């Protein structure tokens, strides 16, 4: 699947297109193969997202998983600071990243 | 032809369109010349006494060769109009002015309030660039 990502213009937070708007959680990402360019152009113009692009991902039973390690690190947070990731209480979260 | 949006001179603008550097060498009566991106400003130095307008082209925000071209012309004593043309953006205006540009013809017109802020941004400057402003070190040791 193709999912859309970028950073929130003001906060800089990593965000994923969930079909209606932008979510902090990659599991909310939806397949946007069809209208990617259109959505990104519109959302950039509305300043909802900054530096957006398309990412290859796979729908797994556990959730949406970007194919490249860089995007998986973006989705969770720095692997060396679990306390600063999106799931600080879940030490196993890192297992799907690396 | 793109409009000159800002001009800091009192003399009458040159009416003729600027010619390329190549054409300028052949047309001995031309008074206006355009330096395209990357062209050497020093080729114009033998002709400064007959030039009244030099346009310097900026292809994009990131190409800063035109700044050096402007200073080279001013340092050689050129006192005619020096116009920045092409992709000229509001946040460059003050720096362009410091390098010797005194007219501006951006491809896309700039917001006049933002432009005025940019021209008047810096109360003082650290460097001597030949634009007539006294640098901070000169004021310190006035």
């Amino acid at each position, binding site marked *: 699947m193709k999912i859309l990502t970028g*950073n929130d*213009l*003001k*906060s*800089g*937070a*990593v965000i994923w297109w969930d079909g209606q708007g932008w979510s902090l959680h990659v599991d909310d990402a939806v397949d946007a193969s069809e209208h990617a360019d259109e959505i990104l152009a519109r959302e*950039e113009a509305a*300043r909802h997202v*900054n*530096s957006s692009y398309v990412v290859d991902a796979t729908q797994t039973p556990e959730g949406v998983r970007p*194919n*490249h*390690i*860089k995007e998986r*690190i*973006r989705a969770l*947070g*720095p*692997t*060396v*600071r679990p306390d*600063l990731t999106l799931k600080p209480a879940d030490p196993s979260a890192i297992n799907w990243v690396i | 032809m793109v409009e000159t949006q800002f001009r800091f001179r009192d003399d009458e603008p040159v009416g003729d369109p600027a010619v390329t550097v190549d054409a300028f060498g052949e047309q001995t009566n031309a008074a206006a010349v355009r330096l395209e991106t990357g062209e*050497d400003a020093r080729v114009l130095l033998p002709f400064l006494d007959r030039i009244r307008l030099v346009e310097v082209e900026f292809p994009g*925000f*990131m*190409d*800063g*060769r035109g*700044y*050096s071209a402007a*200073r080279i012309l001013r*340092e050689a004593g050129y006192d005619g109009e020096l116009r920045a043309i092409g992709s000229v*953006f509001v*946040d460059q205006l*003050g*720096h*362009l002015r*410091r*390098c010797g540009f005194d007219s501006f013809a951006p491809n896309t017109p700039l*917001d006049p309030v*933002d432009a005025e*802020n940019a021209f008047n*941004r*810096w*109360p*003082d*400057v*650290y*460097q*001597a*660039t*030949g634009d007539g402003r006294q*640098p*901070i*070190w*000169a*004021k*310190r*040791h006035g």
Partner: protein
Amino acid sequence: MYKYDSYDQAMVDTRVEEFRDQTRRRIEGTLAEENFRPLRLQNGLYLQLHAYMLRVAVPYGTLSSAQMRMLGDIADKYDRGYGHFTTRQNIQYNWIKLDEAPDILADLAKVEMHAIQTSGNCIRNISSDQYAGAAKDELIDPRPYAELLRQWSSFHPEFLHLPRKFKIAVIASKTDRAAMRLHDIGIEIVKNDAGEIGCAFYVGGGMGRTPMIAPLINPFVPLDQLITYSEACLRVYNRYGRRDNKYKARIKILVHEMGKDEYTRQVEEEFAHLLTQGIEPPIAELERIIPYFADPAFDAAASDDLDLSDPDFAVWVKNNTVAHKAKGYVIAVVSLKPVGGIPGDASADQIRLMADLAKDYSFDELRVTHAQNIVFPHVRKSDLYTLWQKLDAADLSTANLDGIGDIIACPGLDYCSLANARSIPVAQKISERFAGKQEELGELKLKISGCINACGHHHAGHIGILGVDRKGVENYQLLLGGSEGADTSLGTITGPGFSEDGIVDAVEKATNVYLANKEGEERFLDTYRRIGMAPFKEAIYG
């Protein structure tokens, strides 16, 4: 330390307002990202993997206690409680919000700090010797010259859109502690045969994907022509540096392609012209700056005695202190490389503690080193044990300076959007693996970069590690034989790369070759240079 006058303060304050205005226009939509990007970069603001990142300048690596304290406060107020000291003597914050960035700059301006030109294709923060003003071996303090260059390079209107970034280092010792010849311009303050002070200019060094050691282009530029000569070097670069390929745009490529002699000839020609233009500040300006860097009031009666009966303290003194020019004083270095830690990171509390300790024990002054450590430049020997105890209580007493645990590492793929592989976990594993062998291995500089841009200086490591992306999997190449000192050399790749665990094993094999072949007091680097790559390759791949 240098203190701003009303002019300097106005420049920084004006910059804050300019950036506030630019940020407002970006958020409101009248300034497109394409044009905002170079502007925010010239204020040190990147968009990184997880958020915006702000890089704050620490000019020539020197900080007062009040400035250091502010860096700690910013980490708490605007970030997530920590900062990362970089290989160019700066600090960066990883979790910044765009709309708060102007407020951070305003807070910095209150303590005479800024983020001006810490990124972008312009002249970057001027770096220098971290022991300037304290080292025994220096000719004079290089920092007044760095400050003169800082002012000249700040908002220089001709050089804000260079072909690529531009880094200048200034030193005044024969022992190069700033990797001077790996800069775009390296300036060494020297004395000529007539006893006059001047500047030797080395131009066209750098790391990145095409590492080069800068050649000497002028052995002696008089002090009252320093700015004019620098301007000539920059103008030739701005006019002729390549703009068609960003990987070939650094000045090292220009000097290499044009040839050192032709580049020098053009600089000399431009220099002769610029000498007629009156752009050089008067010597009186340098004389105004110099007294700010005068020695603090050292106590001439300070004793050289040191009680080394505490063995942990004794190891720290041996590894982490450096001889001072004043009797009874010492330079003390805080390693930001605890075993298993993240190289260069410090918590807000640690930063504030170091600020307080500098006030109490180091004449209100600190330094940041390009090896990502913190220096107390002027510590009275009689205070050293107390200082060490206080550092120890805050987990800041790791005794591994210049040893295998004192790893330089870039943020890598954990934080950086350019990285191909993670650097920090490799650093952590190596520092854990070798924690007990530190003393046996002696001086061994290990440097890790997470991509070819070489922010982790892997080319200049006795052992260097380069992370690459091999079909979506992190892979690490090993280099041996680099150095950044007076004996600058570039490392050589051993062969095929390794996995994350494989690279740690490979480093161990390399150090075993060293230990088996070491003669006398040889360092790893010396042994490598004597016996060559073959035995290492044999052990690693054989």
